[in-house]
């Protein structure tokens, strides 16, 4: 394959007006679908398939890549404005973005997330372009024990997502893990904590487990609305929307953090078992740990806390495409649907895609570059209108949020049972917030529960269920060893003796 020819295929993304149009519409729709809690990118792409299948291959893929890129960004908007993440990948964004909105800086916060999403997207695509063969090999060799260690690192995020009462954060996370364990155990076929009469709808629902998106909408959306309704006397903050586009200086200042976060995003995204949500949380955590003197403390609207998750989750898009394009294996739920679409269009995604259909392979890479340019353009649309949402009186806005939460929960699986669970978690979240239990760790616990448990069991089974053998296994593999050292370091730095020692020196 000549480089010029490959470049030619990629350039189609820019030169073919029809493809350009499909891509643009995709990005635009993606942003606004992503901004609504509960309407996920996964759902948008699967709906898209049902009417793009009669199209030619490339326009269909253009629309899908567009929705993917736009949707991953869009989740941050509602996170900033309403403290309700549009998607799990935006949970970390809400932690810093919402305090900014309360200071009247929502416009500025959205501006930063656009720039960082675009930068992350570009870096992710670059990594896909240059590092796909190496990263896909790395991802393939990533063993169950490594996924387990990654999940353990994820558990330490509790200290970042929680408040100044660590015990409550840990309790919240434990609750999340417990919720994650509900349902049918896939490896043995046994039911865990499944209630209800045999054959009833309730039981069938519990067998499938509670969707973490339902929990997220309840804990963040519904409960936030309930909390806000307690105090209607506060007047909404007037939003300053004159300086939306972040200054050049401010963007350059964060470049090292952007690069670091994007790298985390791309690598975590490339692993078939993990996606943008875990990438964003890990990036936020490392930003919080490594930033020495943030202008604004974390939790009160630190820009670093927006930069890290936003660049990471968009870089994860490029990462997730690595196993999809080089192995025909999905990197996350959206790429799984895109793979299905490729089959339907008569392509045979797999290790031979690059040889058999180089036009498709390079077009997708080209489309991701151009899609990010569209994101830069459309990302700055509607900010003024969106920021006004925060200025709507609470007695009107909050019921609308509850309504949206109900619609969002229902639309995941068209199941009314999801709505009941969402409402239940909304009330739980309200009580948790009243008693200062952070809700972020609960969502974290659910996201991590499968990764943690299934991979621990796999790792243990692999070595014949012997703990010494598992430890030997970890020490004797470089990747596992590095991850294990990380775990130990995080454990030490999170401990109180270390913190006391640090405070003295």
């Amino acid at each position, binding site marked *: 394959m000549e480089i010029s020819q490959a470049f030619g295929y990629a350039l189609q993304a820019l030169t073919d007006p029809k493809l350009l149009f499909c891509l643009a519409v995709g990005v635009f729709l993606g942003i606004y679908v992503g901004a609504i809690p509960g309407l996920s990118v996964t759902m948008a792409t699967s709906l898209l398939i049902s009417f793009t299948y009669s199209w030619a291959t490339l326009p269909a893929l253009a629309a899908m890549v567009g929705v993917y890129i736009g949707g991953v960004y869009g989740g941050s908007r509602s996170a900033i404005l309403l403290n309700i993440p549009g998607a799990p990948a935006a949970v970390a964004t809400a932690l810093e973005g919402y305090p900014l909105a309360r200071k009247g800086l929502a416009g500025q916060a959205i501006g930063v997330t656009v720039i960082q999403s675009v930068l992350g997207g570009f870096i992710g695509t670059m990594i896909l372009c240059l590092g796909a063969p190496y990263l896909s090999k790395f991802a393939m060799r990533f063993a169950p024990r490594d996924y387990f260690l990654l999940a353990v690192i994820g558990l330490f995020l509790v200290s970042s997502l929680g408040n100044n009462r660590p015990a409550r954060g840990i309790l919240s996370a434990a609750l999340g893990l417990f919720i994650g364990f509900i349902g049918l155990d896939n490896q043995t*076929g046994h039911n865990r904590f499944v209630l209800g009469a045999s054959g009833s709808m309730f039981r069938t629902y519990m067998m499938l487990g509670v969707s973490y998106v339902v929990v997220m909408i309840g804990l963040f959306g519904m409960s936030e609305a309930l909390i806000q309704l307690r105090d209607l006397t506060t007047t909404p903050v007037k939003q300053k929307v004159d300086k939306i586009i972040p200054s050049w200086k401010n963007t350059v200042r964060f470049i090292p953090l952007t690069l670091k976060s994007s790298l985390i995003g791309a690598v975590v995204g490339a692993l078939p078992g993990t996606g943008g949500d875990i990438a964003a949380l890990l990036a936020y955590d490392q930003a919080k740990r490594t930033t020495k003197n943030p202008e604004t403390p974390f939790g009160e609207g630190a820009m670093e806390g927006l930069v890290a998750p936003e660049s990471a989750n968009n870089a994860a898009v490029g990462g997730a495409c690595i196993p999809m394009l080089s192995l025909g294996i999905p990197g996350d739920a959206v790429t799984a649907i895109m793979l299905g679409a490729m089959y339907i269009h008569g392509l045979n995604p797999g*290790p031979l895609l690059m040889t058999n259909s180089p036009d498709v392979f390079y077009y997708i890479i080209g489309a991701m570059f151009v899609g990010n340019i569209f994101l830069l353009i459309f990302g700055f649309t509607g900010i003024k209108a969106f920021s006004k949402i925060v200025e709507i009186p609470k007695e009107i806005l909050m019921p609308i949020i509850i309504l949206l939460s109900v619609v969002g929960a229902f639309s995941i699986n068209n199941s009314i049972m999801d709505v009941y669970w969402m409402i239940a978690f909304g009330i739980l979240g309200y009580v948790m917030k009243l008693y200062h239990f952070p809700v972020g760790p609960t969502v974290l616990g659910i996201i991590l529960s499968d990764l943690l448990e299934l991979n621990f069991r796999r790792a243990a089974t692999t070595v014949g269920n012997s703990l010494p053998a598992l430890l030997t296994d970890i020490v004797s593999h470089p990747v596992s060893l590095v991850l294990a050292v990380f775990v130990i370091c995080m454990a030490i730095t999170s401990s109180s003796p270390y913190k006391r020692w640090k405070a003295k020196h």
Partner: protein
Amino acid sequence: MKKIIAILMAAVMVCSLAACGSGTSSAPTNSGSSAAKPAETAAYPTKSIQGSIMWSAGGICDTVSRAAGLVAQEELGQSIVFTNRPGSGGGVSTAYVNAQAADGYELLFGAENPQIAKVMGTSELDYDDFYPICLLSNSYGGIYVAKDSKYQTVEDLFNDMLANPGQVIAATTGAGGLPETAATIIRSISGTEPNMVPFDGENECAIAVMGGNADFAVSTLGSIASFYQSGDIRILAMFHNERLEGFDDVPAITEIYPEYNEVLPWGPFYGVFVKQGTDQAIIDTLTAAFSKACEAPDFQELVASKGCFVMNMTGDEAVEYLRKYRSTTSYMLYDSGVATIDPASVGIER
């Protein structure tokens, strides 16, 4: 006062929405579903149809189901909305569809797995509880290793397993899945003791084998054909009694171990089902649509590229096929000691 009004407003909105939804168990995606109710059987379908796929997205069952669904929805004039409901070797999906109304708006897209659920004890439901709209395609299994594996032939692999019981890692998809069932059949016939590690799906099994995290796996040809073509894996033997087109250099396991003739041919199939008790007129409409899908050139090409064969089996023929499949497979598993539940005790005749 303001506060009370706001809370009331919120409560009313939630209640009204909840009430809308609970009227019908499936999604009223089209407006006016209540008005259409009396005419439902006369003019089926009047709203979008839900499809539950019993394996995860991107796998072979998923691919075949979605491809057939796309042609069929054109014929039906209503879209089919797919949801993957994997788990318990298909038991989650059968339980889900069985809990819905038998009105033709909830389709089950499944593989062979429920037909062994009763003897393996993974679920109380099998295809007796459903009516086959159309059996779409079938395939066979292959025993494969990574390209740089030390095993050159299937004898190498089996001999190593016999010499080192519990040491050779087999990737499976958990109880009730094809890789585990096939590996268990091999264990009972050849006496091999693999260490079975369950992964999420056949795709994940392939990654584990290629990445060196598992030594071998038995999978549907559909999920490994592309890795075979690219040379990333080597298929040591077909889990079948003859060689297959497109895999000419791969020997059938019966060429090396003739004792496998007793249980083979055996392999997966993929089909679409509705709950028993669905109106015959609805069944006929659906059957015509999916039968048409099987004849579509796009579908046939896709199925062939995945190492599968088009079946297009409907009506009594399909019911008879399912009955026979369940009987032979259940007794094969029971006689060989793989299944511990006596098929006769759960009403399966030999």
